[in-house]
């Protein structure tokens, strides 16, 4: 989905575990027991001490090597290659793969379209991330407040769009954005309003951000809500005894306490934003305002599969991966101290 990589599910589940327990005073790790090591022969000790952990790690290492490391290294290899054609380039033997040095990287970095696509993604992120996290936080706080009713139903309805695949939601919204088939435009026209064209060049960015927002708010809300639920009640009681209002409790206690969750969802959102692909790709056939290289990943896709040039696509991929890593790292550096300062 647009706003979160699939891997975040495990983190969510982890936090959910805390909710079920609901007891912050739970001891660290009950499973961790220290077994007395009996007297054994040296070879046995070697086997259990050194080999066993590796044996247990082996499936993980193997899967990682085959499905993560190998493709990454192959991509790196491809990014330094290119096709050299001779003559008309027809028939067998007219094409050969040659070493390209840093040509592909130079081409990727100097391509104005690549820079423009990065610029668009940054604008998109500036629109999407604050509004998505802001809404998610707001909904989570509302659900957690004492006077809320029908919270389960509300929570599920806000979360539900996350279960709709991005391609499907983009198709749905695409229909709603096309004036002559959209009920929105039908209604506003009957009411005498002139609704602006969302698929026009000025508004398309908001149109796409809206799709991601619709799909992403629910997930982030659940993450934040879950960490709110883990807050011990006596803190609130103490605050109320001191005369704090619900608003003050939200601003002074709840938000600081869920800051780590906000940072985590923020990080995932940044990564997902840099990788936005499905929404603009699905909307592209509907409008003149989305190019085939509208986002960096769309450019990678176009180079690899429309232009059949996997080499420059590989170089662009490496650049995007490195940039994502760098941005995530810087983001964590900047916010970490603020968020976890008290724990240090």
């Amino acid at each position: 989905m647009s706003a979160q990589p699939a891997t975040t599910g495990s983190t969510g589940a982890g936090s959910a575990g805390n909710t079920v327990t609901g007891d912050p005073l739970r001891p660290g790790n009950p499973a961790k027991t220290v077994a007395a090591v009996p007297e054994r022969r040296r070879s046995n000790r070697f086997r259990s001490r050194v080999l066993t952990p590796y044996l247990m790690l082996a499936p993980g290492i193997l899967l990682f090597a085959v499905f993560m490391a190998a493709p990454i290294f192959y991509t790196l290899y491809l990014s330094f290659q290119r096709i050299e054609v001779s003559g008309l380039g027809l028939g067998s033997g007219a094409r050969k793969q040659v070493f390209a040095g840093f040509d592909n990287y130079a081409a990727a970095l100097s391509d104005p379209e690549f820079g423009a696509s990065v610029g668009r993604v940054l604008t998109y992120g500036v629109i999407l991330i604050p509004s998505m996290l802001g809404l998610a936080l707001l909904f989570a706080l509302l659900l957690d407040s004492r006077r809320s009713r029908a919270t389960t139903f509300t929570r599920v309805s806000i979360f539900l769009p996350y279960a709709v695949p991005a391609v499907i939601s983009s198709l749905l919204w695409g229909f709603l954005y096309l004036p002559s088939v959209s009920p929105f435009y039908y209604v506003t026209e009957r009411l005498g309003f002139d609704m602006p064209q969302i698929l026009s060049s000025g508004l398309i960015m908001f149109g796409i951000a809206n799709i991601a927002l619709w799909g992403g708010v629910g997930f982030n809300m659940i993450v934040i809500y879950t960490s709110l639920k883990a807050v011990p009640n006596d803190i609130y009681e103490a605050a109320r005894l001191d005369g704090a209002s619900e608003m003050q409790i939200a601003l002074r206690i709840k938000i600081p306490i869920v800051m780590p969750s906000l940072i985590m969802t923020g990080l995932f959102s940044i990564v997902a934003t840099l990788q936005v692909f499905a929404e603009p790709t699905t909307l592209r056939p509907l409008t003149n305002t989305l190019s085939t290289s509208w986002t960096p990943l769309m450019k990678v896709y176009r180079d690899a599969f429309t232009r059949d040039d996997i080499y420059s696509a590989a170089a662009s991929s490496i650049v995007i991966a490195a940039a994502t890593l760098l941005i995530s790292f810087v983001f964590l550096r900047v916010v970490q101290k603020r968020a976890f300062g008290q724990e240090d």
Partner: protein
Amino acid sequence: MRSFLRVGAMATVAATALLTAGCSSPAADQPAADGPVELSFWAWAPNIEKVVDLWNEENPEIKVTVSKQDGGDPAITKLLTAINAGSGAPDLIQAEYQKIPTLVASDALADISEGAGGLQEKFPEGVWDSVTLGGDALYAVPQDSGPMMFYYREDIFKELGLEVPTTWEEYADVARAVHASDPKRYLGTFSANDAGWFAGMAQQAGTSWWSIDGDSWGVDIDSEATEKVASYWGGLVEEGAIDNKPMYTPEWNAGLNDGSQVGWLSAIWAPGVLSGNAADTAGLWKVAPMPQWEGEEATGNWGGSSTAVTSQSEHAEAATEFATWLNTDPEAVQALADVSNVYPAATEEAESALTTAPDFFSNQPDFYDVAADVAQTVNPFTYGPNVNVAFSAYNDEFAKAADAKTEAAFVDALKAMQEITVTDLEDNGFNVK
């Protein structure tokens, strides 16, 4: 595993092999030892599997299995990926004409001139050129062609008192009149999503975007003729007489159905699209030859495809035999026309197969007479080895122009398209004139 089975089969069924070899097809590379030759065929023409069933009934020793594809572009992308990977390609693939140079440049197609070279006289010259690329090799057997024609809503034309345009000047006047009658109504749209459509327009104007000159490619996308076409459409979009939204969107479909799209410059296969997307308008459309520039009657091609044998096929001979049958056998051609609704490329076979107008055009009994006349006037056109690059440049550049709505932007878009295409060829090391 496979070779193990083969050895086993050789040892134990040698006698059977000898027996059955006698009655198996002479074209099969490895007769009978492995049972029937199995051919895989990637195709997207509607109901093509029913046509293939006819072959399988008559030819038990060469079994063809159709693997249905989403369309021309995704199938080619998958094929190129399989070719790059070294395995996974089918024996046969349905390939649009404009994809053939790209496929040949990637060494994805087998030369089948030995098995099918004799078919030349069955096809129009322009079509044959696009499967030989003007050389001695033969890379595919032509299946269908897509001569462009002008479709219009006869009822609305009558209501507005309009004549069918025969020149582009008249087309522009009719477009203005249609739009003036209702601001939501257009005679057509300029679609930045359909490069093949625009290429057909350029072809009609008498130009060819690529050419082969000895050992070099020529690229002439921004020729005078294409520029004339680009600025014509740019002008119509600028004054607002023609819509600028892409084709094949839900909105466009709705427009065809509710009469806000009054005409469509399309190809022979349009009835299939119209009956699917604008079912309410059956019997209201008519077809006419394209509006003309000065000079001889001419048209372009939009779409049309061929059956090619891939370079990974281990049964090229059997595959060639099937491709030949599919596109030239009278029974197969009849089935292609009836069940798959394509306009067969084989001239004589098409004529005898297509006698009654499509159901959607029951109001125009001479539909295929008009089509046959138009099909004779298709201009020659050469596609190059990087059509994919040029077409994706069209999508991007003309989308910008259509959004900007100025004639100048259309001409600029064409220049950008030329530059991107030439730069790509040069960067890859092709000889460019």
